[in-house]
């Protein structure tokens, strides 16, 4: 088959225009389902940001005085290593503490400006083997040379953290389900559109068209529909991000940390575009399959 790019391009555009009902149905299905997916991913990014510092399941944190010596830190580290009660722990250097601080107060630049990196204490975040052991560990390290204070998550906070980690998992599950659903709905719509044009496909075959000759314009149509729909979804996700950001900025307390950046929206948007295109093309190919054996 001589690959006639101009024929395929022309054929695709003409067909999209003439089958306008189908084209719009396809685009809108892609737009709606990918918007749902993108929206949920966006929310889960928000939860991620908001709960980033709890990610490792920290239950208590051993803060050093800013002037603690390396030796003092190493001693504590060794003891943490040897303790049978500790599940895992992680060292937060001054620099890292600053990064976290910046991220946490991203929306209050004046605060970030004001902070002197040297006043931020290094610390160990410690996860006990069992939540019950938290207090035991805290007692063990309180008052050690160089240690400023040991903060433990109170029971209720711990439970809330637990809840938040659940919510994160939940969002993850929901976005998985939505992604699958989007796939299904888009493929379904495109298959239906293909089904409505099965006669056309059969005639093409009878006139001597190869499968690829028929398939390529259909797949390009799917690509255009998928991309156009995903573009709309992208736009909607972006708008959602702006709205949510706005809400977050105007909210108070803990919620400040549930920020989302434009970068998040763009990242998700790009994924949505790729998914839209791929599903559009695959949907067309799948939809065509059964009508091609004439």
């Amino acid at each position: 088959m001589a690959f006639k790019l101009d024929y395929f391009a022309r054929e695709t555009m003409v067909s999209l225009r003439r089958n306008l009902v189908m084209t719009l149905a396809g685009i809108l299905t892609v737009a709606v389902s990918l918007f749902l997916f993108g929206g949920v991913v966006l929310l889960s990014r928000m939860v991620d940001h908001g709960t980033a510092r709890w990610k490792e399941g920290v239950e208590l944190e051993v803060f050093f005085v800013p002037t603690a010596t390396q030796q003092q830190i190493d001693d504590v580290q060794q003891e943490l290593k040897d303790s049978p009660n500790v599940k895992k722990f992680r060292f937060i250097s001054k620099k890292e503490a600053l990064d976290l601080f910046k991220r946490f107060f991203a929306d209050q630049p004046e605060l970030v400006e004001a902070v002197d990196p040297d006043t931020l204490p290094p610390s160990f975040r410690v996860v006990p083997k069992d939540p019950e052991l938290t207090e035991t560990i805290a007692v063990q390290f309180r008052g050690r040379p160089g240690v400023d204070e040991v903060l433990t998550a109170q029971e209720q906070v711990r439970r809330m953290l637990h809840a938040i980690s659940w919510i994160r998992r939940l969002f993850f599950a929901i976005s998985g389900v939505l992604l699958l659903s989007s796939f299904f709905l888009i493929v379904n719509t495109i298959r239906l559109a293909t089904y409505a044009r099965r006669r056309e496909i059969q005639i093409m075959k009878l006139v001597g068209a190869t499968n690829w000759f028929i398939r390529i314009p259909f797949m390009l149509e799917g690509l255009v529909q998928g991309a156009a729909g995903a573009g709309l979804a992208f736009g909607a996700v972006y708008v959602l991000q702006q709205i949510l950001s706005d809400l977050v900025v105007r909210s108070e307390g803990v919620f400040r940390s549930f920020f989302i950046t434009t970068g998040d929206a763009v990242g998700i948007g790009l994924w949505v575009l790729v998914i839209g295109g791929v599903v559009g093309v695959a949907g067309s190919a799948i939809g065509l399959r059964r009508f091609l054996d004439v």
Partner: protein
Amino acid sequence: MITLEHVTKTYKSDVVALRDVSIEIKKGEFVFLVGPSGSGKSTFLRLLLREDLPDTGRILVAGRDVARLSTWKVPYLRRNMGTVFQDFKLLPGKTVYENVAFALEVIGRPRHVIESQVPQILELVGLAEKSQRFDYELSGGEQQRVSIARAFVNRPLILLADEPTGNLDPATAEGIMRLLDRINRTGTTVVMATHDEGIVNTMRRRVVELDRGLVVRDQARGVYGLPA
């Protein structure tokens, strides 16, 4: 060019459309396929085009066993055969020009060839002015002529025509038959199913008559009805 050996075709197990048909058509022949409604003429043509497979028997077209052809080769077989379908089978939502051009696009003809040949053939079938019309904007006879133009345009080795004059007035039909005759004289094998007594009796070519799937007559320079 075309050989059928003991071909039987049954639809849905109980409808026998062709019964043990054996026939040979040589290169350059012009064959009329006649017979009452439902006698198997379209089925005969459909099998040659591999639109369907025979139950038993062998079909050779241009030296190839049609039934045994692997699927991906079928399009190449079909490109050697132009077909005028009884129900026209125009591509829906395409213009007259695009319908005819499609047969050339399919075989990868360059654009300039398409742009010169399509108007030419549309002129021949009397549709030059209607090239930008859509399929649903045509009268019955006009659709039939588009179908004919599409079958001719890539100068196939074999031309299968199923009732190509059924929707045409006698004058237009005569013009089409002259065209078919001219094409046949350039070496193209023509198989034409028809009910038009006048045409068959005027042309005096080979006539194959089917009746309930059986070949009941095969006559060189024949007429439509049994010579009474």
